[in-house]
């Protein structure tokens, strides 16, 4: 079946621009996570949704970052007024059950480059 998809795969933004990154999780998956991965590092947690509820946004680095999942399926991560330090790969993962004690299935990521 279809896995997690993310779009766009690559995004180049000029400093100060707003960007929106999309995640299509596996159909029926309850949980959705967003991560930021810098080169040579492991993924860093940004935020967690259970269905449409954003239960944890403690990893969002600033108030320029905003995520939503209004109908409990597709999610969008929005970054306002992008800065160079926002350059990274943004990964989305979904899990069939609620909570964080279950395996996550990752998308291919969106590579964001801020110039």
């Amino acid at each position, binding site marked *: 079946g279809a896995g997690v998809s993310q779009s766009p795969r690559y995004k180049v933004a000029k400093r100060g621009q707003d960007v929106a990154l999309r995640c299509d999780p596996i159909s029926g998956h309850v949980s959705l*996570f967003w*991560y930021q991965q810098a080169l040579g590092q492991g993924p860093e947690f940004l935020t*967690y949704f259970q269905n449409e509820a954003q239960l944890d946004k403690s990893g969002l680095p600033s108030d320029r970052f905003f995520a939503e999942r209004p109908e409990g399926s597709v999610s969008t991560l929005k970054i306002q007024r992008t800065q160079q330090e926002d350059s990274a790969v943004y990964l989305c993962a979904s899990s069939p059950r609620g*909570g964080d004690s279950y*395996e996550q299935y990752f998308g291919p990521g969106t590579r964001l480059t801020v110039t």
Partner: protein
Amino acid sequence: EDQVTQSPEALRLQEGESSSLNCSYTVSGLRGLFWYRQDPGKGPEFLFTLYSAGEEKEKERLKATLTKKESFLHITAPKPEDSATYLCAVPGAGNQFYFGTGTSLTVIP
């Protein structure tokens, strides 16, 4: 503070040369330890979940084990296609999920 540390950072093996990767963790009340494989330009791919000390899981040439403080990923007779970055992760407080920085494995034919 919850933390995950992986070693070594990089490992080069000859094809057929078995070895182990380490993941040590400090987290209150372990609710699972997860191993993932990540190929360049791709998202992590789930391998194993271990929930309690003494548990072991196997998949082809990989075997994961868990103690109260660390986990090992044993690679037996690796092949070049096993080359990848191997990540371990644990749930932390709330719904956070902590990943290590990974071990980059290169298997030379």
